[in-house]
């Protein structure tokens, strides 16, 4: 009896929070997706599957596909840049690691919006990159750096790179250096040590970092608006537009659920990767 009470006391706040502010709202979202919009906004409680039929319209599938592509490219580039950076930091003498990590998270001290606007200053046709290149005669025409997919990826990459580096750092730092030394002593060359020892043992970090970058990239609507010039929309813009501009909450709820379902699928994939990895890292620890 005392045990049950203790459990309730310990779990209660967290569980209550989770139920009240995640599970219940999600159920509301789910419920709304089966209703329809009233003439002047709002929700009319007529059961319908129309929203789901609409969500399968090639238009929305194409937007989702574009968002996936942008998010995947962003995640891969973040991994390619983030892994060496995290590796470098994790292998520095201990006293250097904290300052280096602080540098990584320093951009978070400024608003995401301001940092995104800064890219407009850099990339625009009259901007800090094009102007000097034009003046020096290196290019004849301004480079198309802004208001395209490239600019969207740059913006997302810049914004979310720290979220890749931090879990990677944690994973690499936790790695017992003796394992690498053992591999080296047994004659493995550095590149082989890296790919057969370090990478497999830090896959958890890779998976976590990828999810941390991928999920917010997929749902972002500010970067496509500002850096993409609104010329190609992502699923986040679509959902925002349904809730705010069209005041079509039921359809917005349906699109949100589609996004949530997709993310859940990816989390399952991530869990699989981690589980596969677990025995190895368990032995290593």
């Amino acid at each position, binding site marked *: 009896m005392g045990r049950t009470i203790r459990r309730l006391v310990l779990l209660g706040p967290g569980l209550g929070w989770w139920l009240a502010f995640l599970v219940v709202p999600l159920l509301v979202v789910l419920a709304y997706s089966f209703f329809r919009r009233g*003439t002047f906004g*709002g929700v009319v409680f007529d059961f319908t599957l129309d929203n789901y039929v609409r969500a399968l319209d090639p238009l929305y599938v194409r937007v989702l596909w574009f968002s996936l592509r942008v998010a995947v490219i962003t995640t891969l580039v973040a991994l390619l840049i983030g892994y060496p950076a995290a590796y470098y930091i994790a292998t520095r003498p201990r006293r250097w690691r904290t300052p280096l990590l602080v540098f990584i998270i320093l951009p978070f001290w400024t608003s995401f919006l301001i940092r995104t*606007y800064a890219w407009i200053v850099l990339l625009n046709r009259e901007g800090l990159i094009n102007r000097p290149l034009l003046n020096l005669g290196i290019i004849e025409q301004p480079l198309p750096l802004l208001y395209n997919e490239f600019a969207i990826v740059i913006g997302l990459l810049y914004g979310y790179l720290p979220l890749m580096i931090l879990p990677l750092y944690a994973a690499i730092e936790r790695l017992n250096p003796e394992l690498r030394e053992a591999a080296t002593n047994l004659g493995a060359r550095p590149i082989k040590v890296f790919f057969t020892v370090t990478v497999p043992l830090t896959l958890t970090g890779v998976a976590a970092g990828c999810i941390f970058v991928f999920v917010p990239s997929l749902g972002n609507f500010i970067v496509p608006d500002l850096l993409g010039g609104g010329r190609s929309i992502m699923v986040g813009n679509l959902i925002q537009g349904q809730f705010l501009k069209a005041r079509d909450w039921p359809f917005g709820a349906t699109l949100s659920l589609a996004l949530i379902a997709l993310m859940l699928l990816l989390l399952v994939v991530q869990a699989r990767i981690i589980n596969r990895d677990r025995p190895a890292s368990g032995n290593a620890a």
Partner: protein
Amino acid sequence: MTVMETWRTGTRGIRSWAAVGMAAVLLVGACTGVASPSPSATQATATPLATPTETPKPSGKIVISNWDLYMPENLLSDFTAETGIEVELALHTTNEDIMGKIEAAAGSGFDIVFVSAPFAEALAKRGWAAKLDKGQLPNSVNLAPEADLLDYDPGNQFSIPYTWGTTGLCYRSDLVSFTPDSWNDLLRPREELKGKITMMATDRWLMLPALLVLGYSINTTDPAELEQAKQLLLEAKKSLLAYDDITFYAKLVSAEALLVEAWDGWCNYGIAENPDIKYVVPKEGSDLWSDTMVILESSTNKPAAHAFLNYVLRPEVGKAVAELVYYKVPNTKAMELVDPALLAQYPNLGMTAAELTQFGQPERDLGDAAPLWAQIVAEITAGQ
């Protein structure tokens, strides 16, 4: 910081730092002009907002939601000093934002909200807007007669227009070799303008140029007409630099863009920084947008809310608004007071009520066609 300010305030709100700076200067003037009387004076004299009936003097507190920087800084404090009515100001970034808040609270949460005309219409149709008691708004006689006939709310039964204006072309007269006068200059641009044009992304203004060129109503709900407009806009998208609702005038100042679709008031923020920037209402016409004040039906202090509306309708208050945001106010008496130097610098600020109604049609709520519009807009913005 220009762009940041405007990003936060967002669509149909205002303001560049230039406007704010100007406002600071102008407000000093306004302060002296509209000096708040001492409390004793307020009690002693019958102020213009006192109602002719023997209803008790409005008091208590009201909650207002408005765009940031859309009211002269001293407006609320002067109102409170004079009437004793406390005001709590909430801010919204866009119409959509405040509608979301009202929607989520089933029509409650505020006494007065500032929203654009079609949203005022939607609030009225949802039964969330209070029917205005004109007996408590004696200053509404200051409104231009045209402002009483706008078809989203004929007779201003549920809303009082706060500002109004047109949507047109804003361009760099020093860098464009001709004088734009048609929406076709935007939609089917000459070679020199390709890639140097922006259009607005918010559904109503995204569709507007194409609908006007095709000769359709800007409120059309006909799928065939919308489809035609869509094709035209998809074609236009190829020569577009970007869709931009908030920084288009900054793009003109930097010459990144040379011709943009703009609200007259926002073009003025560009003109403030570069006098070579000019505004024109295209020959095919414009909208006649207005931002309105609506008292919510759920308000528990409607007398105080009416007192506020009546206060804003005073000529000197309207003048301060126009001089702060560079938007026209539909208040004839107020426009007469506006500094002539400003009218010379920003010619569109001097457009008369008759000109406005001749150029433009008000936006209406789209009703059941809203999802169709959203779909068409998504097809345009997602299209290649």
